């Protein structure tokens, strides 16, 4: 269904946080302009500022080309203008292969003007310019080199393997020393045996605990995808909002895997990537042509007896995608960063605060509200509204 006005502010807030992470901005930013930047994150799907033509035109200097009034109405609903036969509108429409720019009924004039300001500004949030410059630089490096996040991941993965190997070695040593202790009294100094055995037990114990707990889990799972798709490029460099592609995260239990048509929104124009050239992007076209959907490999899997709902966490709980999926913007190839164990869920449920006062739903929790007023509790965690109950996730 269509954009519903009441959705946007909520989304705004998440993306607002999102922006903060992206910009790594230490300095506080004036809300208006910051919001503009965030709103523009969506425009980035089709437009650049001085980055050349994408789906839509390069917006550098657009504010000079057209009157503000015209721009506002065009952004509000380009199609009406085209229908009404506005010359410029029609011209642009034809020039850009009749791909209509989606309407933004929800944006207020102020917001749109704000965006224009942002564009005029050359895509810099007023005041946060420096910070953004830096971060951009960082990112362009990041694309080539392995980002800290990925590095970290690899280390941990290796760490696990090493532990396994050590355990094996220690096991063998233990065996030898035991044999020596009982039958072949080769080493006279008994304490050597004891030390080996004890330390061996320790290592093997640790390894087996680690092994046992990771049974049926796939932390650090990082499968190869049918298309070499880099989140670092899309979410990181191009700063495309997560929910641009994973569009059902706020409306459904599933965050949603984007249909190829969503890719086409940009890639109908962007036919070649910095790092993979035409090869990977061509696969999208192939899929469309062959009518074969792209079979992505699911990375973060939960057991089937667990019910997890994105809407609950993203929209209601106002969690940032990062908190579970890690800093995706820093990963070329997505990996499962957390072990997604029940313990991990519960830890968050015990610590994380619910939107107790903001969300009218929680008004029904009379007793808790009284406690809160009385100051018996400082804030309400998920646990206090039943976040530890079995049947919140298992049914």
């Amino acid at each position, binding site marked *: 269904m269509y954009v519903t006005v009441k959705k946007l502010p909520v989304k705004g807030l998440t993306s607002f946080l999102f922006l903060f992470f992206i910009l790594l901005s230490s300095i506080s930013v004036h809300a208006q302009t910051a919001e503009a930047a965030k709103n523009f994150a969506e425009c980035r799907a089709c437009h650049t500022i001085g980055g050349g033509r994408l789906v839509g035109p390069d917006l550098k200097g657009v504010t000079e080309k057209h009157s503000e009034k015209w721009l506002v109405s065009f952004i509000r609903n380009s199609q009406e203008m085209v229908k009404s036969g506005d010359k410029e509108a029609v011209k642009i429409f034809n020039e850009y292969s009749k791909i*209509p720019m989606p309407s933004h009924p929800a944006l207020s004039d102020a917001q749109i003007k704000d965006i224009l300001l942002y564009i005029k500004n050359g895509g810099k949030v007023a005041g946060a310019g420096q910070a953004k410059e830096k971060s951009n630089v960082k990112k362009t490096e990041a694309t080539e080199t392995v980002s800290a996040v990925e590095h970290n991941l690899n280390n941990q993965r290796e760490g696990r393997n090493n532990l396994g190997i050590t355990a094996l070695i220690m096991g063998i040593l233990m065996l030898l020393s035991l044999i020596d202790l009982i039958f072949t009294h080769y080493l006279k100094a008994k304490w050597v045996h004891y030390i080996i055995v004890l330390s061996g037990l320790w290592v093997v114990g640790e390894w087996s605990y680690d092994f046992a707990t990771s049974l049926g889990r796939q932390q650090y799972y990082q499968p190869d995808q049918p298309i070499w798709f880099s989140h670092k490029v899309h979410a990181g460099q191009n700063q495309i909002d997560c929910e641009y592609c994973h569009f059902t995260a706020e409306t459904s239990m599933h965050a949603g895997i984007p249909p190829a048509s969503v890719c086409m*929104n940009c890639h109908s124009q962007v036919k070649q990537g910095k790092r993979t050239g035409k090869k990977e992007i061509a696969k999208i076209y192939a899929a469309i042509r062959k009518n074969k959907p792209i079979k992505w490999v699911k990375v973060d899997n939960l057991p089937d007896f667990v019910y997890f709902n994105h809407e609950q966490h993203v929209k209601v709980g106002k969690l940032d995608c990062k908190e579970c999926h890690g800093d995706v913007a820093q990963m070329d190839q997505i990996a499962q960063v957390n072990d997604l164990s029940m313990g991990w869920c519960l830890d968050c449920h015990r610590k994380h605060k619910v939107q107790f006062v903001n969300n009218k739903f929680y008004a029904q929790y009379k007793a808790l509200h009284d406690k809160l007023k009385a100051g018996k509790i400082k804030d309400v965690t998920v646990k206090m509204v039943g976040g530890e109950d079995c049947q919140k996730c298992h049914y």
Partner: protein
Amino acid sequence: MEKKYWQSFENYKKIRKEQASGNEAAPEFSVEGLDESELKGKSSRRDFLKMMGFSVSAVALVSSCQMPVRKAIPLLNRPQELVPGVANYYASTFFDGNEYCSILVKTRESRPIKIEGNELSPISQRATTAKVQASVLNLYDDARLKGPLKGGNKTSWKTIDQEIAAKLNELKTSNKEVILMTSTLISPSTRKLIGDFANMYPALKWVQYDPVSMSAIRKANELNFGKALIPFYHFEHAEVMVGFNADFLGTWLMPTTFSKQFSKGRKIKDGQKTMSRLYQFETNMSLTGSNADYRYPIKPSEESAVLLKLYNVLAEKVGATTYPGSTVNTDVNQVAKDLLKAKGRSLVVSGTNDLNIQLIVNAINSLLGNYGKSIDLSRPVNLKQGLEKEMMAALSDIEAGKVGGMLFYNVNPAYDCVHVDRFVKAMEKVPLKVSFAETIDETAALCDYVCPDNNYLESWNDAEPVKDYFSITQPVIRPVFNTRQFQDNLLIWMNNGVSFADYLENYWKTTYFPKQKKYESFDKFWFTCKQEGVFQSETDPEKLTSFKGQNLKAEKPLKNGLELALYEKISMGNGKFANNPWLQELPDPVSTATWDNYICVPPLYADKEGLKQEDVLKINGKIELPVLIQPGQAEGTVGIAIGYGRTEAGKVGNGVGKNVYELINTVTGFKNLLGTSVKIEKTSKTYPLALTQTHHVMEGRPIVRETVLGSFIKNSASGNEEHEEFLKNENFSLYPEPKFDAFQWGLSIDLNSCTGCSNCLISCQAENNVAVVGKEQVKLGRIMHWIRVDRYYSEIAENPEVFHMPVMCQQCDNAPCENVCPVAATTHSDEGLNQMAYNRCIGTRYCMNNCPYKVRRFNWYEYVNNNSFDYNMNSELGKMVLNPDVTVRQRGVVEKCTFCVQRIQEKKLAAKSENRELRDGEIKTACQQSCPTDAIQFGNLLDKESRVSKSNETKRMYHLLESLHTLPSTSYLTKVRNKEA
């Protein structure tokens, strides 16, 4: 977030338009991972999104501990309203040729997974029956044909069309008769279409055929009012209802509607003085009989005499003409008294398909001036249009060799025709035999062409169950197999270009759009019709001629000999759905038997003849069936259910029970289920019957608490003294009373409204992925249903009072089961739910022992992907019906009713994300939703305004086994019988 899904503006516009018309077809693409038959399917909202990956894996990998690589495959192009993981509801209509119901279909990832009643329908009013609930499973029936057949072999539609069209034209030239045999059709557009078809093939003769006929009523009304019709009965306007062998709460005519109406008169509040009263004269112990205030067992041969006696008594009182009747010793004076008291506010019906009887019934009703009040002649019911004489004529024509072609749509005479043998023999004479059956049924097996019809969930259609009340059937999924709708076949054979969808739309445009003023544009009108599923045209009913009395006569009751009374079971009906495991395993509300039909024998007779349960009897030296001793069965009669003994139903239904259609009584020319006199002889064999209940009386325990209206008026707490007792020392406990914040879910069941129709069982089964376990397991006492409808008899075996009591998990606050689980698999939630974590359970079954209500179920075997349990959960197709929100339980774990926690969570989330408080009545449990009498209320006990709290405030409220101090969240309201103490 619309903006993200268009590709080009053309596409965009299309979507816009289609949204308005609700019928978009997104670009085509092949469906990965479906078997070849499904591969042919084209993409659209109505496709399996098997590629969604999640929903299906939820079934397949329920217990595996290794982590497989899971593919998450998105749609290539995502249609508009489809959001993976969010359920969509579409209004549609259920009609199986016999029973009508307006429904909502719940789809997930575009798979229909659940049927709900449609609130907006003035006919069925959100009520459903077990059959309707279970019908969704028929869509995923393995027995369905994957494509058209010719002489039993696969063929293409092309050849079918060419050859049949050719043959038809051939017959046209050689003007041989072509018979189109259908079930009763209530679809106006289809009727018109058949008309068109007939214009093209003048030799076409259309015969409507009902396995169970009600033509006598039409005939009687023709004689009395000059118009052959079945009136629309209004039980809600009747204070005194008298039923003669009419199981109107179970199977007669429109059980959904009638249950709703009936329950209106049975709802009773504290201090209320009046309540409707139901007299039932019947042979078998039917569901309606079990709900009657007064029940009189009568022989079929006595019925007319009793009726006439009643008529005469009334006639004398009001001074109308009386007729000589034969003597019966059934006392009708009380009935007469009550009826006279309630003139114009009463209703007499008979389910017997016998002209005399129906004439008397009409006479009585007109004496009481019920016409125009509780009986509406101006809005006749269009169901049951089949006439025996047409069928017989057709049959003799075929035998005479006059018939060149037979087309069977939605009928199965080779199974349910009275003269099966004659019919089957005659069929050999017919050169062209075409069946439109969905599966190879008995008739299709005889045909040389089978053009499989779509399931109704894949079809376009409309319906007019009652004059001027219309409803729409719209497809909620693309045809799963290479099937084609019956109507489309006709259209193609008429090589008329349009599809039936368009035909339908045009028909509505031309016919019904003018009949309303609300919508100026047809698109809007059509959109709303499809959205709401129902439409009522604003034409004022035409008046009928006044009542023309007929000469009434009664047959002479037979003194001796055994009379047979056939009946339809709630679950099986006329046997069309025999291959539906849910229905096969649904315990009969009265006998609690599953998976079989049997001979209901009255207890006294059994004693006399030394018959024991499960002894096998031979009827007329032919059919062998086991005995089921049925309290309340009239002396000198036996009862057998029709609808069993299918031979071509499919893996589930084949050879379950015996076919007894041939025992239908046809002496009067009307197909009458009652009155065939039979001989039975005892054989040495025995045959096991799977009953879910082995003990039938309450042993004087305060389980179902009841009172009579008289004492209720005096004291609304009467019959509920135990509760008063309990309240005196409430919460006399070592431990503090459990406290909750915000929510404490509670359920209340009004035993006075509950008719025991067992509809909730199937609804629950569909909602919660409850497994079917098969006859042997049921016999062993291992049925999995989360709700039981316990049935108790009062002590008198000849004509007992019957109690129905739905028992599901009572969600006790001091739950005995929780204390004893060693691994903390069952605990208490902060919303008062007794929660069960399947994945933690190790199956010690201690909780089952310790549950006083015995509502916990154990997975004795693996019921999924297990060939020993070859039901819906053992086939990829069958598993499509599973609810993705509910775990499929593994072998060795205990499961139970959860108050549909998935629905609770769903609605809570909705409230949260809409930033508002939860509304009362927003959450409906599956059982509550399907209940045709609104006997079940669910809500928040902490909210004193909620419906459930309100109904708990009455003096009738009590908890089951409350003396145990388990503090259940489920409460019951005492049963009030409208009897003289």
